[in-house]
């Protein structure tokens, strides 16, 4: 893979924990790669697994979904649903041969600014290793 490849990551963050954790990383001036682009949702339970597929199709090289730690969900249970749905999606994507390094899920609390950085770093590094997503990217095919 060429050295200059910079992966494009779409991340879905729950408003209460992970988005707040990323905000904390900001106020703490923790530095991390700029490849990550955040979409704020109220709860990780909001993340329709098809969003992940859609992001890959529309140009993401990697996708991250992050929510509250189990038991900490602002809405009590949303992250449990997210975990079940996205766990199944991950199994499906791996089975059709989408590099597992392209999709990650994490629990980042509002106080884990540093964990957020690590999660971003891991997601970006993994996607970089996996290389540009050719797969079923829409633009590559007859567009």
């Amino acid at each position, binding site marked *: 893979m060429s050295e200059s490849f910079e992966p494009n990551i779409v991340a879905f963050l729950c408003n209460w924990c992970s988005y707040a954790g990323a905000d904390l990383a900001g106020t703490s001036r923790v530095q991390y790669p700029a490849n990550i682009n955040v979409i704020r949702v109220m709860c990780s339970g909001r993340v329709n697994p098809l969003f992940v597929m859609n992001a890959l199709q*529309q140009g993401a090289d990697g996708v991250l979904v992050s929510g509250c730690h189990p038991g900490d969900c602002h809405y009590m249970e949303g992250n449990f649903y997210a975990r079940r749905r996205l766990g199944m999606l991950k199994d499906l994507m791996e089975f059709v041969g989408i590099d597992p390094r392209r999709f990650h899920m994490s629990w980042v609390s509002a106080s884990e600014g540093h964990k957020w950085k690590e999660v971003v770093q891991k997601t970006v590094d993994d996607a970089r290793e996996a290389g540009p997503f050719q797969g079923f990217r829409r*633009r590559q095919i007859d*567009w």
Partner: protein
Amino acid sequence: MSAMLLNKDQWSAFVGKLAGEKKVWAPVKRGDIMRFEPLEEGAVPSLDFANTTVPPKTVVFPQTETLYRYRIGQAELAVPVLEGEAVLLGVRPCDARAMSIVQKLFRWDVDDPYYLKRREAATLVGLACSAPGTNCFCTSVGGGPASTEGLDLLMTDLGESYLLEALTDKGKALLEAAQDLLQEAPAGAVQEKEKVVGAAEKAIARSVDTTGIPQGLPGLWEHPLWQRTAAGCLGCGTCTFLCPTCHCFDIQDEVEGFEGRRCRMWDSCMFAEYTLHASGHNPRPTRRERTRNRINHKYNYFVQKFDVIACVGCGRCVNLCPVNIDLVEILRQVKEAL
């Protein structure tokens, strides 16, 4: 130079010759299915098939094609350039006939530039049938194993060699280009061909007498046979998408981010959305009306307008329907009900 003989050991050289000049499409096997694909360099297509799963209409009428591209909020349009000349190798006579039938529609009130340009740029090399498929019934609808309609060149398998008969100038040009690989066909060759074709015609097991059907169908509008037939229908697009004469399309804008394209893609009258109005009303609300429409379109409306049945008897819809909805069987029932 209208009938030539190509020895089978020259087959790959012949293909190579064509491929050198034009883009060659030929049947390619993908797992259990067969479809027309651009020939990869050096590849030699096998002509050992009854018919392709997907008809060659895909070459001139792609399942999806971009009409133009744009950026939201801006006026400029980018129109894609159509590809150059192509040769379709191994087209069955029924599928070639289908193209000439469909062409009537695309030439009708407004010329469809996308279709017609592709069609004009294509040279069709046909392959006469020697072993018809289970559900072939071309002879019932005006075709035959060696029908030449729509073809530029017809090939017939004579065992050791192929008989190549040029039918148009385009076909002649092909023969001329491959002149050094061919030899003049002896007189017996054509007779031999007739024998092959005759045997093939006899081997066609399914048939239906279509006389009276176009005229009779309007009278059967409310006949229970439609309900009976449609009850088992799944409403999928198999029969229509794989039909060589089905030509309906939808036009959609597809947007990604701030960019978009207007494109057209096959549509199927068997889908509920096909006739769904913006109001929510659907004039063909159930599979009964859709099934009735499919038969009527082919055997009634098209006949009224263009004086030809828009079915070439290729049998694909019968072969591939997952719930055994059988066109020949429907026609038999129509006939009975007349």
